[in-house]
């Protein structure tokens, strides 16, 4: 019997080679179509199933014909951005989405402005936001920076008031307010004292500690070489950057911002008057393909992070002679920084602040299982290669571990569990953010070049840019000092850091 069945199988399978189905039907009329208990045909179903396939198709067609359906006679790529938008934000990191959220927050009527955010990699594999250590501090020397971080910390403490969406889970940033601890050596202690007075004047809650007080508070620190320490008591610490990005994105999209996955590859200047250009059309290229869409827009915001300089160059900003205003390039380039996750069960403990040593090393607690995140700023001469995000473990062995073990003796015995690398959107001019409009291209705004402290300043910086666009000038915080003017005038405003 089974041999007979195997013959059936052979004949059925061979029905494509022989010209007709007659061969199979000769043998199967006795047994019916599903004798063998399995469906061997690989093409259309044997029975014409009217109710499942055709009826469903007819119902779908009828539903498409009703108003409100999104059917259109043109079979175009549904992922293309719209043909025109009021504001195009290039870059979908935390800065771009923060600006999008604040623009929608400040429009006075619903659908006041049409905003689209163009991000070329929705997995954020190279974005600085998600690869960041996530720290927030007010211990800067520039009042603008302190204001930005203070306002952002306030925003993040009340994040659900701002970014909560109805019927969705509340936002949990895991904001650990453990504070930053800066350690200064004898030579730079006076800078730390001056910074401390600036910070207190602006309103940051910082305190200075002598070595003995330091040892009392944090017994695991080796205070050799430390002359002064500056500890943030409130609004300082670290949080989860991915949660902040998603919170901004979810809220902005619920308010009507359109997200588009694509890369901006060009722009068309529509009017060139003697003292200004207006870029009016952006060319957005779809990923993995040749399709592109020209998006007509009124305002362009460059929030492309580490790749802002390259974007500006591609848009033709610096194609003019170098010593003219029009030819000033946007001085932002990517710089690679490594972060290493180490496990040390005998380490400092739960009240570890984000410690930054005068030698350039830093570390902070990560989670509750005895893991810490650590890294160091490389010297100017040994900047790593930025063509990829490969991690150099030798750097840990040479530069980070010795300093780490010197400062915290418990860290002599640790194990590196993982590591990653991320880009700073490094402002080669003065390592501080550029917030403002471009002097020549009238409708291009910048929010980039934060050189490692962009994530912590993103809520307040986004609000500043939105005020600039919708109100014409800054309303809550005055960020004119961080404008593009200082780059044209070659007047850097450097942070007086101790490292």
């Amino acid at each position, binding site marked *: 019997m089974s041999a007979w069945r195997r013959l059936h199988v052979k004949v059925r399978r061979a029905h494509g080679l022989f010209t007709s189905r007659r061969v199979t039907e000769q043998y199967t009329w006795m047994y019916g179509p599903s004798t063998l208990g399995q469906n061997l045909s690989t093409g259309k179903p044997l029975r014409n199933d009217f109710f499942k396939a055709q009826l469903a198709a007819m119902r779908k067609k009828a539903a498409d014909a009703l108003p409100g359906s999104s059917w259109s006679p043109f079979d175009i790529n549904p992922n293309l951005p719209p043909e025109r938008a009021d504001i195009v934000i290039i870059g979908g990191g935390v800065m771009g989405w923060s600006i999008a959220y604040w623009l929608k927050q400040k429009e006075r009527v619903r659908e006041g402005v049409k905003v689209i955010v163009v991000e070329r990699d929705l997995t954020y594999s190279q974005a600085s936001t998600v690869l960041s250590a996530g720290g927030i501090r007010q211990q800067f020397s520039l009042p603008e920076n302190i204001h930005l971080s203070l306002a952002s910390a306030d925003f993040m403490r009340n994040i659900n008031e701002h970014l909560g969406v109805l019927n969705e889970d509340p936002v949990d940033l895991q904001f650990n307010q453990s504070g930053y601890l800066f350690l200064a050596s004898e030579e730079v202690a006076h800078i730390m004292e001056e910074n401390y007075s600036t910070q207190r004047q602006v309103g940051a809650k910082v305190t200075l500690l002598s070595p003995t007080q330091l040892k009392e508070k944090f017994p695991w620190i080796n205070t050799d070489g430390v002359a002064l320490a500056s500890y943030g008591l409130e609004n300082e610490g670290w949080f989860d950057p991915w949660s902040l990005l998603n919170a901004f994105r979810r809220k902005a999209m619920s308010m009507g911002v359109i997200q588009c996955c694509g890369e901006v590859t060009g722009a068309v200047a529509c*009017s060139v008057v003697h003292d200004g250009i207006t870029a009016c059309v952006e060319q957005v290229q779809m990923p993995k393909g040749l399709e592109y869409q020209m998006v007509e827009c*009124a305002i362009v915001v460059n929030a492309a992070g580490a790749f802002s300089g390259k974007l500006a160059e591609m848009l033709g900003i610096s194609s003019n002679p170098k010593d003219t205003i029009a030819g000033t390039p946007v001085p932002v380039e990517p710089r690679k920084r490594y972060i290493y996750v180490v496990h040390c069960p005998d380490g400092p403990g739960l009240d570890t602040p984000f410690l930054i040593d005068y030698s350039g090393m830093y570390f902070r607690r990560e989670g509750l299982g005895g893991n810490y995140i650590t890294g160091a700023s490389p010297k100017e001469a040994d900047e790593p290669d930025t063509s990829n995000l490969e991690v150099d473990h030798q750097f840990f062995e040479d530069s980070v571990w010795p300093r780490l073990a010197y400062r915290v003796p418990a860290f002599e015995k640790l194990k590196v569990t993982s590591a990653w690398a991320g880009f700073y959107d490094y402002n080669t001019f003065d390592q501080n953010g550029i917030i403002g409009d471009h002097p020549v291209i*009238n409708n291009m705004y910048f929010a980039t070049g934060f050189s490692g402290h962009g994530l912590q300043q993103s809520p307040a910086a986004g609000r500043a840019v939105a005020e600039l666009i919708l109100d*014409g000038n800054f309303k809550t915080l005055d960020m004119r000092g961080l404008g593009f003017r200082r780059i044209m005038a070659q007047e850097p405003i450097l942070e007086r850091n101790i490292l």
Partner: protein
Amino acid sequence: MLKILIPTLLLIPTSWLAKAKWLWPTTLLHSFIITLFSLAWLKNTTETNWSTLNPYMATDPLSSPLLTLTCCLLPLMILASQNHLAQDPLVRQRIYITLLVTLQLSLIMAFAATELTMFYVMFETSLIPTLILITRWGNQMERLNAGTYFLFYTLASSLPLLITLLAFQNKTGTLSLLIIQLLGPIPISPYVNIIWWTTSLLAFLVKMPLYGVHLWLPKAHVEAPIAGSMILAAVLLKLGGYGMMRLMLILSPLAKELCYPFIILALWGVLMTSSICLGQTDLKSLIAYSSVSHMGLVAAAILIQTPWGLTGALILMIAHGLTSSALFCLANTNYERTHTRTMILTRGSQMILPLMATWWLITCLANLALPPLPNLMGELIIISALLGWSWWTIIFTGAGALITATYSLYMYLMTQRGPVPNHMISMNPSHSREHLLLTLHLLPLLLLVFKPTTIWGSAY
């Protein structure tokens, strides 16, 4: 009549044979000459009111202002489109002008028709070039939706009109306006008089538009290119009003009761759409809703069928045509420079383009019916006529006039005053073409202050 129609028809070969450099100046000049000739229609010397009579077409004091407005608008449309079509290839520019001329032809023949059949055919014909203008030259994806709404609202409501006209021909043996005006009441079975009344007027109520069936207008006006918006606002809406005025001759004993719901709808629409204007973010959308609001007044005035009502309706139609078209031109000058229609992003233009601010001021003041402009004359006559019909309408019309003033001033203040945004600091200065365009809109309006009897119509 032929001395206007033949030159308009021959504008089509002109646009195809003119050299590239001379295309726009040539068509502009010739359409201006046609406008000058059309001014002759405004003088009416006959006792029967019908002049320039031939078997198919004639003008009377009701249709001659609308005809002159139509002929006046073609050169203005050509002026307004010149800039944004400059990047298009030459063939497309020629096609655009051909479409505008075809639309012009169908509109002239519609207004001048003596037979209602010809009027109906031309009414439908005017839809096609407009549809092509909206769907091909509009700016955004939504223009397909807008074109669909525009086409099907008008088509669906005008097919019953065809049936009505055929039935009328059957019953009375004629569809000529000259004879209809002399016929008495039409014997209709009392069961069908509601249907008869509705089918006659539905097409025109949709075209006006009446408040409940106005959805096509904001979409079509916003998505159309500037010439499309101009002709839509200035003339195509008036086609509805004109049709209503003509057809109500055949409906006379019925109109007394059956017009009630539509008058209420129209007056309610005045209030509602003016209020919507106050919350609009898109400039063209605001002007579109303001058109609906003004046309609501016109619809109510025509429906009460009094001599003052018809007079006021016609004056307001002409004045609104010029004003609305001017507003769309101003919005377009803004759009061409900033590439956005959102009002938040285009503020403070008075600082940058002061002379354009003058035109904005005059046009916004015209929109809010400032004396002595014909806008006020029309509105005042309509409000008085409605008051005579019923005391209660003053609530609607008074509140409507108040809100109209509010949103017109709001539009002026939002676009002209306020801090200048950074991205508007260096815009292209105003072209003299734009100044000419607005002057040619506002000059007839100002001239009409001195002799409104030209646009009074035959009811007075």
